């Protein structure tokens, strides 16, 4: 799957940097945001969208349409935001963002790879917009609701099983977060995927060891995630989640009859070392004072090598 010809004109490193810059700019201007998720996830999402995933051209407008109602029998024109990942055709890959709280980072990725216009991020968390704070089914790049953590891998397993039965060649991918391994459903899903030999199912998990309350070890220790995945019947590979070559190699790990889960060890401050001052409350960074906002603006801009944001 490593066809360099599938990459767009920009390097994956440039896309990852662009994701951090966009989320930084957005968070400074809005006095808060999911900053640390951009730090940990940038390389993974850049790698998926810029080279690893086999996606068709977007089928939805570059500037997202406003919210058009929830699914119901009386809303026949309803559609999800999956069209930003291209059409659901047999040969193409599908991607679920299981931690829907990463939506801001996922939207920034869509912009960086040319699947959504920058105006889309201006609509983030605005009333009446489909670009919701917690990615909804109708939000750009989303296909199912994953706002309750732990359901994404199960849904993807069902989709992958169904696609295999249909003879699809495309893979089903899940972007996961390590907090999800606290949910029992994750382990049910890995066991089921293994029992049914669903090897078209792939995941990459952002192991940043952070969750809403703080560091995972302080909330509930989860032990060795790879060992547990292996015990439940999956294939797990540890990588440095900021090392693109490591991810490129990991995805080639043979996993016949089993789902492959790449465990990406990441830093929640990567590219923005100033954020460490906020540890361990990194889930959603809201600046506590105008001074902190200004300091973060100056320091993070310097580490990203961009001018400070005007706000």
């Amino acid at each position, binding site marked *: 799957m490593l066809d360099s010809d599938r990459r767009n004109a920009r390097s994956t490193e440039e896309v990852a940097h662009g994701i951090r810059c966009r989320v930084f700019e957005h968070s400074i201007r809005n006095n808060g945001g999911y900053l640390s998720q951009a730090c940990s996830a940038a390389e993974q999402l850049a790698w998926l969208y810029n080279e690893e995933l086999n996606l068709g051209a977007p089928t939805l407008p570059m500037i997202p349409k406003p919210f058009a109602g*929830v*699914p*119901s*029998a009386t809303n026949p024109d309803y559609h*999800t935001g999956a069209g930003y990942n291209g059409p659901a055709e047999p040969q193409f890959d599908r991607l679920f963002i299981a931690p829907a709280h990463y939506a801001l980072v996922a939207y920034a990725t869509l912009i960086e790879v040319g699947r959504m216009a920058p105006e889309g991020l201006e609509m983030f968390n605005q009333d009446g917009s489909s670009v919701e704070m917690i990615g909804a*089914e109708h939000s750009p790049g989303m*296909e*199912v*609701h*994953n*706002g*309750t953590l*732990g*359901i994404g891998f*199960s*849904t*993807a*397993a*069902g*989709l*992958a*099983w*169904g*696609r295999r*039965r*249909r003879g699809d060649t495309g893979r089903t991918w899940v972007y996961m977060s390590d907090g999800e391994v606290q949910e*029992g*459903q994750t382990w*049910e*899903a890995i*066991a*089921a995927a293994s*029992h*049914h030999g669903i090897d078209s199912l792939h995941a990459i998990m952002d192991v940043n060891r952070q969750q809403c309350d703080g560091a995972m070890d302080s909330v509930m220790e989860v032990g060795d995630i790879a060992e547990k995945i292996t015990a439940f019947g999956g294939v797990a590979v540890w990588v440095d989640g900021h090392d693109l070559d490591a991810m490129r190699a990991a995805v080639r790990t043979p996993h016949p009859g089993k789902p492959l889960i790449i465990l990406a060890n990441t830093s929640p401050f990567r590219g923005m070392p100033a954020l460490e001052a906020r540890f361990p409350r990194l889930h959603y960074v809201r600046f506590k004072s105008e001074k902190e906002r200004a300091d973060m603006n100056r320091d993070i801009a310097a580490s990203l090598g961009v001018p400070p944001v005007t706000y």
Partner: protein
Amino acid sequence: MVEMVNRPYERAFEKHALANPDVLCLSADLTSSCEIDKFRDQHPDQFLSLGMAEQNMLSFAGGLGLAGYRPFVHSFGVFLYRRPYDQLMASIAYPRRKVRLMGFLPGITTPGGMTHQAIEDIAVMRSIPNMTILETGDATEVESICEAADSIDGPVYSRVLRGSVPRLFHTPIVVGQMRELALGEDVLIVTSGITTEEALRARTALEAAGVSVRHLHLNTIKPFDAAAMLDHVQSVRAGVVTLENHVTEGGIGSLLAEIMADAGVGKRLIRLGLKDSYAHGGSRPYLMKYYGLDAMALVRGVERLLGAEFGISEADLSAARIEAVHSAAKAEGL
């Protein structure tokens, strides 16, 4: 004597699934208890065992629905919504997946006690947007439940009877259409599921006592055509009695209350069923009597509504059908 039909679901599901290749059979370790063990053995390529892991099963079924399949998810009713409620909402109901939840052992039809008795499933399902709710009351309805559920463009929860089931009707379920079993003018009795058979027994005695009974059987609980029901409510003199194998909060008694209040109907409503109470484990006849879900409870309810006593005794009711808890028609004592 009423005809008893053995394991009607087993044959009905097989017939429907074989005619519809996009129908899949899902099970969570209750395969024989849900009468799909023969299907599993004979059609393994259309069968998915998902183990005792209902949360995954419901999201997985949502994924199958996204892939264009119509999974029939089999388990006891309670296991389809209590533990995996979040998955039911996010993976099935919200996106309107064509997932058919086949809930066995509705209400007190099991001696399994609180953990096995789905006594509030209708209330839960009624409050879920996009959900359709069907309930079977006899063998003919069980025989037609797969086709009825699979005709719905969206998720469906069905209360399914198993084992030895009486045949009360001779026409299949027509989704959205209630059965008009009597068109009297004194009192309207509304029942669904197993309480319809009780009402049929009570009716004989009530009519002998001179009460003109209007009796409706519901197999479609949501969506519901209020206008048709209102016509019936307006057609009786005294009021309405509902009898349900469910708590009286949120089920068909509440449905009638909502319809009548919304339309400003100033008639009395007596809601019979589990009165804000759990049940315990025991035989079905014992539980129906103990919790006031049987024919005699209905007679007493009608007496209360009419402010009269008819002197009807158990002996006046048609002989109650007593089922052995352990019979060859069931996979286990549950």
